[in-house]
């Protein structure tokens, strides 16, 4: 039986003594899409940070690619919710994307042709190639988001943890993200994504509704039932 790419068994997440969400149980296989939906402060970002190894789980057993979160950094890509203090940084887009290779390169390895090729492919996939040599701080928030997505893709990870990847993007940008996720899944990448948008859950294998607890979890048609949505948001989807 193949190892689960992401596994959470009775995991509680939070900060210090403060539990944000308790008793999380789920697992995913290669190529799966898990969508975390909830209001602000519901625990979506905390769960992603826990899986990325930035926060230790308060209890329970969490494994990413069969190891403790934060161990297999080369194989896990994480896109934070609001990346980059872009108003001050003197970086062009290509430099931002090159950072996606640093986990592989470590401190001393030199950038190879393969690294440069992966950066180029990531720039092209995200449509960021046309402004690759422009300073990041001169770009719109949507263009900056594309640069950060390209950075995550350049890592060639097996698991992608994306915190609101469509934030600040227009309709075309949102479609681009959906297409990128589909193409990454097609090559066996597991994607765990946090979002506010219910439509992002359409193609998910698993949807988790969060409201400082797990309200529902399962296939979209199960997890997004009206009673769960009402419990989570106080309203239901228009039919």
């Amino acid at each position, binding site marked *: 039986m193949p190892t689960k790419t992401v596994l959470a068994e009775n995991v509680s997440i939070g900060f210090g003594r403060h539990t944000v969400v308790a008793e999380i149980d789920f697992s995913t296989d290669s190529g799966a899409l898990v969508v975390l939906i909830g209001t602000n402060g519901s625990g979506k970002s905390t769960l992603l940070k826990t899986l990325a190894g930035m926060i230790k789980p308060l209890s329970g057993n969490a494994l990413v690619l069969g190891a403790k979160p934060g161990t297999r950094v080369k194989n896990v*890509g994480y896109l934070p919710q609001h990346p*980059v203090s872009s108003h001050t940084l003197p970086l062009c887009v290509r430099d931002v994307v090159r950072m996606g290779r640093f986990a592989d390169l470590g401190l001393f390895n030199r950038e190879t042709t393969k690294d440069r090729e992966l950066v180029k492919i990531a720039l092209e996939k995200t449509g960021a190639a046309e402004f690759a040599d422009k300073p990041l701080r001169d770009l719109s928030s949507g263009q900056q988001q594309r640069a950060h997505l390209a950075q995550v893709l350049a890592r060639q990870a097996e698991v992608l943890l994306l915190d609101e990847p469509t934030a600040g993007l227009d309709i075309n940008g949102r479609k681009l993200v959906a297409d990128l996720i589909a193409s990454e899944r097609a090559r066996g990448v597991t994607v765990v994504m946090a979002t506010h948008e219910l439509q992002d859950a359409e193609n998910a294998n698993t949807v988790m509704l969060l409201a400082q607890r797990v309200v529902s979890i399962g296939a979209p048609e199960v997890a997004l039932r009206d009673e769960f949505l009402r419990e989570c948001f106080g309203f239901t989807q228009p039919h």
Partner: protein
Amino acid sequence: MLDFFVRPFIDDQQLRLAFIASVLVAITCAVAGTFVVLRGLAFIGDALSHGVLPGIATAMLLSISPIVGAAVGAAVIMGGVGLVSRRYKVSADTAIGLMFVAMLSLGVIITSRSTNLEEDLDHILFGDSLAVHSTDLVWQIIALLLVCLIGFIARRPFLMMSVDDGLAQTSGFSVSLFHNLLLAMIGLTVISSFQTVGTLLVMGMLVAPAASAVMFARRISSMMLIASFIGIFASYLGLLISHHFNLAASATIVLITVLIFAICAVRFDLIKRRNLKIDELPHQHEHNHAH
């Protein structure tokens, strides 16, 4: 013309020595200052520059090298800030503020115990580039090489931490390790520079050239290069002005770096406004067509 701008550096050996020392300080501060500005560490840099005072004063009382005393002072303030913020759950800037005033007060108390040291206090705080010895240059060159070595080895985590600590952490770099290494680099810069520009004024060299450079640079390496040029130019101009008008050399150098920052800021603002106007032009054009 040549007599005014170049002759003093040819005729006056001490001025020449001061210029070489200031150039070394300018380059060291440009490398460390780039990360100080990008990571927003100006306050801890300021605290470090003041925190070395009791170390230097004690070393002078004990007749040992002030550099050793400065290193101990820097280590105490870095350790103290870490300990206070971790153990007592106060924010980092509160911990820095507490350590900063504690060390500065301690320094003043120690110097007040000795008449000789009181006279040296000005020299420690404001430096005296015209009193630099050739042995100081050797130490400054070593410090410059060490700062460049640290900057080169840790360039990837330092760059990522300037963007976001999480990015560095999820790429396998220990944020606490590299943050402490960065603080050590700033401490080394302060220690190596205090003889030339003093512990108070070193902050100007650390922050002003890098803050000017960040407005125009497109890469971290070019930011360091521009900051170095600004620091070197300010050193030359500051020494020249202080020589001709009999002013305090170190303070003149630092004031010029800040003036350069002000000029860069105004220029940057003008460029931004011009670019905004250019961006608006096509819209106005479309608007006219619509009518």
